[in-house]
């Protein structure tokens, strides 16, 4: 050790620089798009006239124009307005469901990995049981039992994706649980919660975030699928998935009504993945 390396001043030697998340450009772009859609979902509806869901008098499957910037749908309604109203469902329900699924699955996986044995076996078999029920069928049962509502949709989508998250998180956590630093923490007398939260979780965050991005796409697709079956968001309300579905008739005409919501879904999912892939500390692993 060169003794000249530092004159070792009194502590702290270096001002504790709180690392601001310095995002690379693609990450910033992703963040911007997500914030844009969030803002749209939150504040957009106030800027619209209350009759946005009522059938319009205008042309069906209209082109882009001054009156309707993004064209009109199969009932002549303004697509822009429909998109803004749908943003709440897609962004809200999909994000809530994804976060719930990821948080729940990860927490259960950590518990299974750290406690092992009996708890691990029970949780793993329970998840296997859940995964063996076809997701659409499961959603059908849920809707039949409790009736369709936005809360139920979010919970159902979360429940459907918990086992998948659990599987991935558990396999990561089991590997990390075998690391020496976890053994050191155990032999230091740390509790399970500390080991789960401080020793294991930070080291599996990267892959879990990547998984979150992927799950988000699945949830959006699942919600669209449910809407298609008439089990999702009920008309006249519509999430983006249902917008694509209900305007499918415009596809032969190349109507913007079908392309615009699809582009909106694409922009949101790409943005979520851009942001997650560029979060600080992800590149090194």
């Amino acid at each position: 050790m060169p003794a000249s390396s530092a004159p070792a001043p009194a502590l702290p030697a270096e001002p504790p620089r709180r690392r601001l998340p310095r995002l690379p450009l693609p990450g910033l772009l992703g963040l911007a798009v997500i914030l844009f859609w969030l803002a749209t979902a939150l504040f957009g509806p106030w800027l619209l006239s209350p009759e946005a869901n009522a059938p319009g008098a205008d042309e069906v499957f209209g082109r882009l124009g001054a009156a309707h910037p993004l064209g009109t749908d199969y009932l002549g309604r303004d697509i822009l307005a429909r998109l803004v109203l749908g943003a709440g469902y897609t962004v809200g329900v999909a994000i809530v469901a994804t976060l719930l699924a990821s948080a729940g699955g990860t927490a259960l996986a950590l518990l299974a990995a750290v406690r092992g044995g009996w708890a691990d076996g029970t949780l793993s078999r329970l998840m296997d049981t859940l995964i063996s029920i076809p997701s659409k069928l499961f959603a059908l049962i849920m809707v039949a039992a409790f009736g369709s509502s936005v809360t139920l949709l979010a919970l159902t989508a979360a429940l459907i994706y918990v086992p998948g998250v659990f599987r991935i998180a558990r396999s990561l956590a089991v590997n990390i649980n075998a690391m020496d630093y976890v053994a050191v923490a155990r032999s230091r007398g740390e509790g399970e919660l500390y080991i789960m939260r401080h020793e294991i979780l930070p080291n599996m965050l990267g892959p879990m975030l990547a998984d979150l991005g992927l799950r988000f796409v699945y949830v959006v697709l699942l919600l669209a699928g449910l809407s298609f079956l008439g089990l999702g968001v009920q008309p006249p309300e519509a999430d983006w998935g249902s917008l694509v579905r209900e305007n499918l008739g415009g596809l032969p005409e190349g109507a913007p009504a079908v392309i615009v919501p699809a582009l909106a879904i694409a922009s949101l999912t790409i943005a979520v993945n851009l942001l997650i892939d560029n979060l600080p500390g992800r590149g090194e692993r």
Partner: protein
Amino acid sequence: MSAAPPSSAPAQAAPGQGAAVAVRGLRIAAKGASGEHTIVHGLDFDIAPGEVLALIGESGSGKTTTALALMGYARQGCRIVGGSVRIGDIDVLGLDAAAQRRLRGRTVAYIAQSAAASFNPSRTLMDQVVEPALIHRLMSRDEAERRAVALFRELALPRPDSIGQRYPHQVSGGQLQRLMAAMALISDPALVILDEPTTALDVTTQIEVLRAFRRVVRERGTSAVYVTHDLAVVAQMADRILVLRHGAARELGDTRQIIEAPADDYTRSLLAAAHPAPRAGGPAADATATPLLSVRGLAAGYGPRGADGMPAVPILADIDLTVRRGQAIGVIGESGSGKTTLARVVAGLVAPARGEVLLDGALLPPTLARRSKDQLRRIQIVFQIADTALNPAHTVERILARPLQLYHGLSGAALQARIARLLDLVQLPSAVAGRLPGGLSGGQKQRINLARALAAEPDLILADEVTSALDTVVGAAVLDLMAELRRELGLSYLFISHDLNTVRAVCDEVVVLYAGRKVESVPRERAGVAEGMATGSAARHPYFDLLARSVPELRLGWLDETAAREAQQPAGARAAGCCVFLDRCPVRLAGVCDSLPPPRRSLPGGGEILCHRAEVPAARA
């Protein structure tokens, strides 16, 4: 790109003959965070046909990078930026990618450090050994197999005719390393690159592999480059040595000159680190006081317990051990001997199946959950690989702060001051506190690993191979530090290692484990190489004797002097509970060793031994 038609191999040396290698002004750059920087700075060296040149240096000295460049290969993120490499008449760096591929495995062969990672587990060994010859279309499969069997024989592999039918997991690590040599030599390369081929092996295996390598290299007259950090190994293998540091040549000379009369300061420091000097211990332990740690009749293992309370995979059996206050006890044995399991049992990570562990005379509960916080604090474990022992997501400050908060309830300024003192104690600048382990060097990480254990203010530190992953010079510094801390803080160590030199340098007593049994314990003074059965000065267990003799010595001709161990046939029938070393023992007694459990006897002058032999010479005398 090149004018030479490489497919016709113009410079392919005659089979079994090495080529001259000339390297001029070799420069290699690596891409870093701040653009490209040079990691090998203009090396010049030559290798005469049939000569073995050793590249020696610490990790990061560029020795592997240089060796790979001889094949025209640069690792991911690296680039050969200048200079020339000539093998025979071939200008390696002037060839295009396809021609370089034709060169590799044929004119230049590479033997990697970890054979286990280099073999495909799902194909037979023969399939893989003949592969280079088939890829380069040098010979038919039948001819290649005949040649492979001949090579197996040359390399002293057991059952050379049938070993090729096995899969990689069915042979030992030492055999795999020799099979990899066969794979490299099958195409009669003009130059062989051996990259730390024995570093991952136990010393008793290493000596056999070294002997096999040297014989084939000498007999074939192949030119070779031997990359290693171990000077004692180099002294046996190389004709000339090139000492590298930070990608630049420090010294190039004959092996004898480098070993006996090094001209460069850095070479001298490497040589000094290879001769570990005994570190002074603390004041002599009081033999009458209650021992700090005592282990009695311990058995442990992994897997579910059977009806008799023994685990499915027993590792340790019948271990007795005493550590007195201020003492350092070395535990030595080959991989799989149960050294690490012993440390884990003492630390409470593995519950013992039988026997007991006492701390200061008080029984320690078998599992962590039942140990008190104070009992946990007093025993700290330091793991071998600092990379996995330090949480990569925590800063150094946080790593050190946790035990201080947990055991001593420190916070605020007192905590900060204590962290700074700990960093000072392990001789690190306080600026590292804010860094993550990923930003530290191997030696620095190991110091943090040690500092975390010290933070608990323990009485006993279980040090599991703490210097094995480090370079010799860095490892020596860590050993010095540990010896110093022992004097200053009155710590006791249970020092686990596979390296007899290291253990001898720091420990008061050496305990030898073999197959989970304690076969011998000797005081430090009697753990020397020159003693033992051969001189008759003291009884020594045949395994310890083998171990001591297998540690390479830093002088020329050691490998030749050390007689090859005659291949021992495994003993036939045996009684349950007989000696565990029976199959490998060169001095076993038929009718005794295979039928009776060996007795445990105390030796005059301290120590114990578990062997029938120990009493036989005495009976004869």
